């Protein structure tokens, strides 16, 4: 007879199962987004929910999925390096706006990080949560490293980074336009520095200049946080 159970096990434990599920979910999410154009159907969010649904239905653990999706995550590094290209192409525009960019990054970066921690402390989250939350506005490899250094949990930091990015990317462009932020550089900078890679990929959809400033803001915010946050935490504790 046919070994249906065996075939099922071979399917869900195949080393490519994670890649397959992720690719499938992403295509569906993209199709749904392109068909409806609803801004809350962000492909990352929808694919995430679809993948979690499949994993739970198949009884697979996140650890197993993580290993079998490695073929995709391995490209996150080169993709981060690749952000240098839009950054370089728009260097001229960035140079023209050098002081506004630098000032906004400094003041806005302190506000973004400080406000998250203060609010969470005020709402009663514990120390470990606070320290996992502090680097929420920077891209996940940096956030995980920084959280680990200052007494938080790296994996939790990755989750907070993601929630921040998704919310920022979903609501950001609309809200920014509503309060009268029209310049693509201002929109991109605001999205890149608070909503990191997810915000940057959203900003790239808005336009090239917007994307370039988002990439610039994301990388400078990341580098700045990686250096400054551990020093600040060391000073205050």
């Amino acid at each position, binding site marked *: 007879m046919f070994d249906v159970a065996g075939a099922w096990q071979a399917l869900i434990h195949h080393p490519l199962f994670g890649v397959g599920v992720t690719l499938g979910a992403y295509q569906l999410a993209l199709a749904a987004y392109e068909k409806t154009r609803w801004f809350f159907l962000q492909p990352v969010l929808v694919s995430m929910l679809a993948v979690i649904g499949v994993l739970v239905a198949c009884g697979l653990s996140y650890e197993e999925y993580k290993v079998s999706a490695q073929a995709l995550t391995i490209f996150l590094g080169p993709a981060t390096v690749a952000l240098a290209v839009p950054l370089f192409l728009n260097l001229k525009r960035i140079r023209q706006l050098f002081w506004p960019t630098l000032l906004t990054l400094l003041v806005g970066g302190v506000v973004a990080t400080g406000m998250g921690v203060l609010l969470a402390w005020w709402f009663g*989250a514990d120390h470990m949560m606070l320290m996992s939350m502090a680097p929420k506005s920077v891209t996940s490899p940096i956030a995980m490293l920084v959280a680990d250094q200052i007494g938080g949990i790296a994996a939790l930091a990755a989750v907070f980074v993601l929630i921040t990015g998704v919310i920022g990317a979903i609501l950001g462009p609309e809200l920014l336009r509503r309060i009268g932020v029209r310049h693509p550089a201002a929109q991109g900078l605001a999205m890149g520095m608070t909503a990191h890679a997810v915000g940057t990929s959203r900003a790239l959809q808005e336009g090239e200049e917007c994307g370039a400033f988002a990439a610039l803001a994301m990388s400078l915010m990341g580098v700045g946080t990686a250096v400054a946050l551990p020093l600040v935490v060391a000073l205050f504790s």
Partner: protein
Amino acid sequence: MLLRGLTWLVVFQLLGTVLNVLFLHMLPGPIIGLVLLLVYLIWQGEVAESISVASSSLLRYLPLLLVPAAVGVMVYAKAIAADFWAVGGSLVLSVLLSMLFAGWLMQKLIDRQQRKRGEADV
């Protein structure tokens, strides 16, 4: 073309990783790689076609590459549920307020700079 560009990106990331282990423990390898590639591009003064093709192909799929990390939410569902309102509330509030603040500040500074330039021209 695509492969040659991808090779460059990987080389820069690996260089970044080496520097990370040797000197810069605070900064992850890919970020050091980004800075190195930027310096290289400024030095060259232009983007080689291979690098341009590879980077635009990769960046188009950046959301896809972020999905596996996003799925990690499922592991911490319980810890997040315990502090749900404190964590969720402050995350949402702080990202929206700080994003709007940053956008507003940048817009003001750009407007001011353009006004100054305008006056200087008169």
